[in-house]
């Protein structure tokens, strides 16, 4: 899984939690709240420590892992003029924004559910800087620019990159960063920006961030720092090392991705509970070609090959109904549940051109998975869905190898024949994806 995005609010909370350890000498107020409705915001304002919500002008924006909120017109910072947003304005705005689906410029769409609200920070363009870090190739790279803000991508040539090899020691890291502070940062700010950048890099490194960007970071008087916008991804494989440092951090589903079907959710839940791997994505519920493939790599080559042949045989990519895989030695009941889910989805809609449905039961040569055992679950699902599968003129193509594959293939063939299903079965002597050609050229 590796890299997972976290909310802007949680990223800022991490900064606040570790501020004194890394950024002593600088000051950060961490005035920030995460709410899901206007009502929640109004309630928050009554709590001790959050009086600023009533006292200061505010900024509100969705906090749902997508960027370019300014360009998507999803940042509330003014009603009439910048810095005049009151608590009531923010609450009203949030309730309006969460009341209807939103489509971004990128095409993603969904409902807005989480908002971050902060004080409006008056500052000048000159006080805005850019800083970020991530891993490129073998090295970490720190990016710094005197020109922060929405247009940083347009001004990328002004961004300074500092490559930091994994084994560089702290003294060299400091030297390297200090030597490369962007020349267009005003002289009076250079030293303090450099120390901030060094601390920023160590914070990024020690807390196992995969990506960390503040744009803009605003340097106010007296070393007061304002983190106006933040994007962060954590390396979640480091979770076991970071239990205390991260606390109970949330990895939300990216915006627009949360609209999983109940079937996909059910498979995801089964996957989370199992030691095996069960994955299902419905690409087109009305699609004609359904797959049940064992193994991650194999599932990709089947999808590739279906795309190749669908187009070559007069169909289109829309014929491919689903993508997914089962692997890692699922139990018979897990395989049955997976197969039933796929068969149920497959038999909901007739093909709009009246063509046969195609079910690809594919897989590479297994290392040690007992093929006959996993096929038992699929056969049980056949028994339940045989009539529906026949209604949809389903043609089944099976290809698999590995331990006990002869028995697996024989069992599934016999079961299909007994149930009156149309089936062809192949073993390792047939090329793994050749059943796709056979199915689609017919």
């Amino acid at each position, binding site marked *: 899984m590796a890299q997972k995005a976290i909310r802007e609010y949680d990223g800022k909370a991490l900064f606040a939690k570790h501020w004194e350890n890394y950024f002593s000498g600088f000051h950060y107020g961490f005035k920030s709240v995460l709410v899901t409705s206007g009502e929640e915001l109004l309630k928050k304002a009554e709590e001790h420590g959050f009086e600023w919500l009533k006292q200061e002008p505010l900024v509100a924006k969705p906090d749902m892992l997508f960027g370019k909120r300014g360009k998507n017109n999803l940042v509330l910072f003014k009603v009439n003029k910048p810095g005049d947003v009151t608590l009531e304005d923010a609450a009203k705005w949030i309730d309006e924004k969460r009341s209807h689906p939103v489509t971004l410029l990128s095409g993603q769409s969904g409902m807005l559910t989480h908002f971050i609200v902060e004080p409006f920070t008056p500052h000048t363009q000159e006080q805005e800087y850019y800083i970020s870090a991530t891993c490129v190739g073998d090295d970490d790279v720190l990016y710094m620019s005197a020109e922060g803000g929405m247009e940083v991508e347009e001004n990328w040539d002004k961004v300074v990159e500092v490559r930091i090899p994994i084994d560089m020691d702290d003294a060299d890291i400091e030297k390297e960063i200090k030597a490369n502070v962007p020349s267009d940062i005003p002289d009076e700010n250079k030293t303090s920006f450099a120390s901030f950048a060094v601390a920023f890099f160590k914070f990024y490194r020690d807390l196992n961030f995969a990506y960390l960007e503040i744009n803009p970071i605003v340097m106010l008087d007296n070393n007061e720092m304002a983190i106006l916008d933040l994007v962060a991804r954590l390396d979640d494989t480091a979770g076991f090392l970071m239990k205390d440092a991260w606390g109970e951090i949330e990895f939300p589903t990216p915006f627009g991705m949360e609209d999983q079907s109940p079937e996909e959710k059910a498979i995801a839940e089964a996957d989370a509970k199992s030691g095996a791997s069960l994955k299902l994505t419905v*690409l087109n519920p009305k699609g004609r070609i359904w797959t049940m493939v064992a193994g991650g790599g194999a599932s990709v080559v089947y999808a590739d090959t279906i795309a190749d042949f669908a187009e070559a045989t007069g169909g289109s990519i829309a014929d491919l109904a689903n993508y997914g895989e089962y692997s890692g030695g699922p139990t018979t009941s897990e395989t049955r549940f997976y197969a039933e889910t796929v068969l149920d989805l497959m038999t909901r809609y007739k093909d709009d051109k009246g063509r046969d449905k195609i079910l690809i039961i594919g897989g590479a040569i297994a290392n040690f998975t007992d093929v006959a055992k996993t096929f038992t679950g699929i056969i049980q699902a056949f028994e339940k869905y045989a009539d529906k599968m026949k209604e949809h003129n389903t043609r089944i193509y099976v290809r698999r190898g590995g331990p006990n594959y002869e028995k697996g293939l024989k069992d599934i063939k016999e079961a299909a024949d007994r149930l009156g299903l149309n089936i062809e079965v192949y073993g390792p002597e047939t090329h793994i994806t050749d059943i796709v050609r056979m199915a689609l050229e017919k």
Partner: protein
Amino acid sequence: MMERLFTRDTQAIFWNNNKKAIQRMLDYDYVIKRETPSVAAIVAPTSSNKFEKFFWGADEIMVPVYKNTADAKAAHPNADVLLNFASFRTAYDVTMEALAIGGFRVMMITAEGIPERLARTMINAARKANVTVIGPATVGAIAPGAFKIANIGGTIDNIIKSKLHRTGSCGLVTRSGGLFNELSNIIALNADGIAEGVAIGGDRFVGSVFIDNLLRMEKNPDVKYMVLLGEVGGREEYKVIEAVKSGQIKKPIIAWCIGTIAKHFSSGVQFGHAGASANADEETAVAKNKAMKEAGIYVPDSFNDLPKTINEVYTKLKNEGVIGEIAEPEINTIPKIRRAKNFVCTISDDRGEEATYAGFPISSVATPDTGKTIGDVVSLLWFKKVYPRWSVDFIETVIKTVADHGPAVSGAHNAKVTARAGKSVVEALVTGLLTIGPRFGGAIDGAAKYFKYAYDNNMTPAEFLSYMKKQGIPIPGIGHRIKSLKNPDKRVEGLKNFAKEYFPSTPLLDYALTVEQLTTSKKENLILNVDGTIGILMVDMWRALGYSEEQIDEFIESGTLNSFFILGRTIGFIGHILDEKRLAMPMYRHPFDDILYDVSKAEEI
């Protein structure tokens, strides 16, 4: 870098007692007729076993088990491959420790989901140490006909069908472990199998990437052409393109990147490994396939056409004479049914023409003309070693010295009483033997243990005495009923003189004598007695023979020293028992007047 990743002599240290995977390696070894097992040792920190049994064909062999990598490596310096099967939590530590120990040429790491920063640190350290890392998140690698890592290749049936049991002419590199077998099968069906294959691993950061493996295969004379199966995401394929363009790689390469489907879906759907997503246009499968084709790499039109391309390149190379015929080697067959043995014997064998003691036929040690004594037999059957003359003579001296100490000692007395009760020789003998323990005869073990402890910890004699006082134990091996420095025990004198003359050195005895000076200054009869002398000289003997301190401690712990007493004293006990039988002595009853009777009536409570 060596031109071949593995040979038929390559041996590995397997970190984690993964019995199934190790058995699969040994089955493979047996099938391809390797002379040595490919797993030299197992490291299992929490195991208390010294070895693990595995099948070798129908037979069984023992693979030694160690608690840590350092001990395993020290005992098996030639094992230069580390198979790191630790979990994602500990795989990093295991790798770093092994790098610090040194002497490993290849390390394979199987864990998936090692924190990226740790993976990068580990990979960087390995690269600096010139160690080839395979993985993390991989099923490993294989050099057909030579060495196979753990589970790669699947079952033996599949291995033979996919021609993974002998050297072919293709070098195979894949990212996916699941498709590795499939590719091996395709290459067996459409060409002549592979010469070396590596699944580099699915994590974002892996040790050896495509180019590292292909550059080695370029130098491997068995490899005539290469097959590369890449994946959407990353830029590793471009390094291969550069090497082809610059002429670093001259052998033909057939390549394909899976994940061409991704072009149809703008975002959202994750195809394949979590790390396998394209961050830029050049990282898509379509772009990489196109770029590789333009660089002169053989790239089929689709994955489904890959077999055809492989066959075309193979046929071309065959026609050009680059690839010759491959002789199919004879192989062993793994028996369908095999049974684990319940007993293990490592000291003698009665299956051949003549029974042997540790490999020596009995006739070669039994008769006087062989020049061998009972000491030689003890060294063979107890220690599985041929000891030098001086130590064999010492053992014999000890046995003779402890054989008997008169009828009054408790063991002999028990044996005599039992014999007089009409019991058989063996029954009377065991009552005598059962008396041997911490108070009777056990001073040999105790002396060896405490004197060695004091010596190892550099205690002065005074410190040793106060240490023993604190423990509340009289010093074992010190003290005699009547003997003193002025009236020495002749048996002790004999042992000491023998040792002084024939032992290479006697550090522990020398130390014990300084202790004796102190104890005898307190009380005349606190001399080093015969038990103490034997125990201490045994330690000196083993040290001189080159045993490690751990091994000597183990001898002491397992009661080896007492065994010399048991063996010797058995001679005396049997003498007393036979004596009783010949004398036809009646049943013994102890006289009343020798017992203090002090019995009061029990109170009710």
